[in-house]
């Protein structure tokens, strides 16, 4: 067996295992176990040695026990299977005896890749996938050449390239054609979500400080006609503050009715709204973000909810990259009712009440007073992410307002809400994202964890008005290369992970348009079924298969095909055949068995037909068939 074949098997096992480890979902212990691949294949490549049978059996037994334990304890069969495949690959690395073992490695690597595809959606997977396809195709082509006899680097390159390209094209075709549904491949999701701050049901005061320096991308936004002020990505609002924690006092969520694939919250006219296509990374919250006020959301989900503050929620935590389009009409006034909960205040805030009165004394109406408070906070306090812990028995807001005078958006926004409420103006805090940087490559907006922001909405004259008392802080932009890299990630999110039913329809329509009749176009949306392609595809594959068979017969001639059959039959009868085998190789191996006579005659006939001047006569054909039958059925020993 040539070294390159062994190497390919090793690389395949490695790629499969690495794809799992890259997902970050594997138990760290199995990362260590995975390292076992290196000594295994090193030894295999160097000396072709395998571990003794009993060690392999023992290890396999132990692995099964660990697997059972793993599945029972973690209650996650999916991850347990993933762990099992890693252990299997490592054991196999020490136990590669015959071609069948190599095939097992291929199969398990493929399984690993399928599992990994469920575990991660990053760009890295695309790279791993391509590498895997190339390796697998090379390994299969090589193993084909080995059984058929005769391989060389020159011979290899062409079929590997052709088949790889065909495979990737077919995969792409399937990718485009397979129906998109909101169903998941496996019930439970195994994505690791990004930890965020500010979007859970209770928000501990000060939690934003931990994420303000985190450059992790939360979402990418494509949007037409962006204007100034359109950079407040509203998440959820909170109305109840107990001195250290914000929460929401009304937890009702109302399902939104769905029309086609659009969830309409408030009926709207297309020309009044700004559409934002948002690619949201998996985060640890079910809230989704958009400009306010939101009118409708287009998403491939079964259900969608809003709360009374018009925050929009998915049915569950965004467990993988979520793609949705939000239709909002920024600038439109949002009417509101002055409920008592917007005036709730924690106890012991007499000092704050006094301060509110002092600041707002010059204001003639609610709007003026609110603006004065906003101005006051902006001017008299220092934006800083390093905030000292307030002394005992002093609330963080009190400390910020009267002593430290240093803080970040949470301090400013909470202070303003409290000050407004102290003046009797209904107000609530809004958590979301603010700003984001434009990526010229691809023309979209990158919103990072560090763009997390809190601001204020106050009910003035029956409408909710946004105030942002936080002074703006300048941050250095990322480098060009970082932006370029991000645009590739965006393309991956956009065209691979976020490839939607709508995109499918778009492609099909553009493909079908030149030939389709106008009446057909109407029904295409519903009636078009990608499975129509399947019979065609199968037909093409069958034709290709037959052609390859015929080509093979032409290339080899009748006698060779018979000889290859003989090798196959003998192999199936338990004879260890080298590949390619020569006549003598076979004679030596069957010597002493009851087959020897027939095999000798067979080989003699083959050699005469193949290398001698004897033409294959119809009698010869019959003789081959008869001898093959005998060799297949005769008992091995007398």
């Amino acid at each position: 067996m040539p070294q390159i074949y062994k190497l390919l098997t090793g690389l395949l096992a490695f790629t499969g295992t690495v794809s799992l480890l890259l997902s970050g979902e594997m138990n760290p212990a199995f990362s260590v176990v995975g390292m076992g691949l290196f000594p295994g294949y090193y030894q295999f490549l160097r000396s072709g040695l395998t571990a003794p049978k009993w060690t392999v059996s023992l290890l396999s037994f132990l692995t099964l026990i660990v697997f059972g334990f793993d599945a029972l304890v973690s209650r996650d069969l999916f991850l347990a299977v993933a762990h099992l495949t890693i252990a299997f690959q490592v054991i196999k690395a020490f136990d590669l005896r015959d071609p069948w073992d190599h095939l097992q490695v291929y199969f398990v690597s493929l399984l690993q890749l399928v599992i990994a595809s469920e575990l991660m959606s990053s760009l890295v997977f695309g790279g791993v996938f391509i590498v895997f396809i190339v390796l697998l195709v090379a390994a299969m082509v090589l193993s084909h050449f080995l059984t058929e006899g005769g391989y060389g680097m020159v011979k290899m390159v062409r079929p590997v390239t052709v088949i790889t390209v065909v495979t990737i094209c077919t995969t792409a075709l399937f990718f485009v054609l397979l129906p998109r549904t909101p169903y998941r491949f496996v019930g439970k999701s195994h994505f690791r979500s990004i930890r965020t701050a500010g979007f859970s049901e209770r928000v501990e005061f000060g939690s934003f400080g931990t994420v303000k320096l985190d450059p992790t991308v939360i979402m990418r936004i494509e949007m037409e006609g962006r204007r100034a002020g359109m950079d407040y990505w509203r998440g959820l609002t909170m109305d109840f503050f107990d001195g250290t924690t914000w929460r929401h006092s009304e937890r009702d969520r109302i399902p939104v009715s769905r029309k086609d694939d659009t969830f309409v919250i408030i009926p709207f006219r297309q020309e009044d709204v700004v559409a934002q296509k948002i690619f949201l990374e998996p985060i640890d919250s079910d809230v989704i973000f958009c400009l306010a006020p939101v009118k409708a959301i287009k998403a491939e989900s079964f259900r969608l909810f809003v709360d009374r503050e018009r925050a929009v929620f998915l049915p569950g935590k965004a467990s993988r990259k979520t793609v949705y389009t939000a239709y909002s009409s920024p600038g439109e006034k949002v009417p509101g009712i002055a409920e008592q909960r917007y005036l709730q205040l924690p106890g012991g805030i007499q000092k704050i009440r006094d301060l509110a009165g002092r600041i707002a004394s010059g204001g003639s109406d609610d709007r003026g007073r609110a603006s004065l408070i906003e101005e006051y906070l902006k001017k008299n306090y220092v934006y800083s992410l390093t905030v000292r812990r307030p002394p005992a028995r002093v609330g963080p807001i009190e400390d910020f307002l009267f002593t430290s005078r240093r803080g970040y958006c949470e301090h400013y926004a909470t202070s303003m809400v409290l000050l407004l409420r102290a003046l009797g103006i209904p107000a609530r805090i809004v958590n979301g994202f603010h700003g984001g940087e434009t990526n010229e490559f691809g023309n979209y907006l990158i919103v990072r964890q560090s763009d997390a922001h809190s601001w204020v909405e106050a009910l003035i004259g029956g409408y909710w008005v946004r105030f942002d008392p936080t002074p703006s802080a300048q941050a250095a932009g990322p480098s060009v290369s970082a932006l370029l890299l991000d645009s590739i990630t965006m393309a991956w999110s956009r065209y691979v992970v976020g490839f939607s039913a709508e995109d499918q329809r778009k492609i099909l329509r553009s493909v079908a348009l030149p030939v389709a009749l106008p009446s057909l176009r109407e029904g295409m949306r519903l009636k078009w079924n990608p499975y129509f392609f399947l019979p065609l595809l199968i037909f093409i594959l069958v034709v290709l298969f037959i052609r390859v068979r015929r080509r093979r017969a032409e290339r080899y001639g009748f006698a060779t095909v018979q000889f290859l059959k003989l090798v196959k039959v003998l192999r199936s009868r338990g004879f260890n055949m080298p590949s390619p085998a020569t006549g003598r190789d076979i004679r030596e191996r069957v010597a002493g068995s009851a087959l020897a006579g027939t095999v000798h005659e067979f080989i003699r006939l083959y050699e005469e037909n193949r290398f001698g001047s004897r033409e294959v006569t119809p009698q010869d054909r019959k003789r081959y068939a008869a001898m093959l039958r005998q060799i297949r059925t005769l008992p091995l020993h007398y």
Partner: protein
Amino acid sequence: MTNQPLKQLQARLTSIIRGKEEAVKMATVTFLGQGNLLIEDVPGVGKTTLAYALAKSIDCSFQRIQFTSDLLPSDIIGVSVFNQEVREFEFRPGPLFANIVLADEINRTNPKTQSALLEAMNERRVTVERRTYRLPEPFMVIATQNPMEYQGTFPLPESQLDRFMMHIRLGYPAPQYERQAVLEQSGFDFLDRLEPVLTRQDMLRMQAETEAVLTEESIVDYLLAIVGETRRHEMIRLGVSTRGAQFFLRAVKALAYHEGRDYAVPDDVKDLAPLVLGHRIILKTRKYISDAVGVISEIVDKIPVPV
């Protein structure tokens, strides 16, 4: 195709040199392929006996030249002497003018004399003083040599090595045969008394039949692939020449004929490669032919066999 005489020859030779069927077969194959044979081994394992037995089993003229360090080219080719009676120079053929020439311990003589053999071995003729004399048919040189690492030897030049179709080693006989050999009468007397089992005509006919053995295209490709690989192999400084490939093909035909076939199979090529190519390559690191044979075997294992 009848192989009766060939079987007799084989039987005769193996009765003299027991336990060396493979070496005997290869010697016969070389003769069938009209090549020259180089037998290399330590002194005293039957090299000369094999050559002598082969010559005596065929009804051919036989000459033996014991190569020594002071042997001159004229000693083997012959000299022109002035004949007083007819008053002109007359060529007296040397021992080279025989069907089978045993060049014993060829690496004991100096390169000048060694190279005198070159023309004879390749072209089956010798030129003396601008006159060319044809050597008799069939013609074969069986050279024996001691391994190069032994005292008092001149290594054969590559060009001369290349003219031998095959290079074989005998090795010590297996214990039971060695016992027989020790107990039985020694010396070459009984060899001299042997009756030939093959006539000269038989031999010529078989050589002609050998040439007609069919080598299918893929066999030639296979053979050339092995030869080609010797020129690319990283451990080899000098690969196999085109003449080497010609000899290889002739040897393949001869082996096929010897096996009773009128067509060659890949196994013939596989079997012969180490014997035919081993002495034709020069390794980068080690200089002994035995190392080269190992490299050739490695190459043969690597090149895919035609099916």
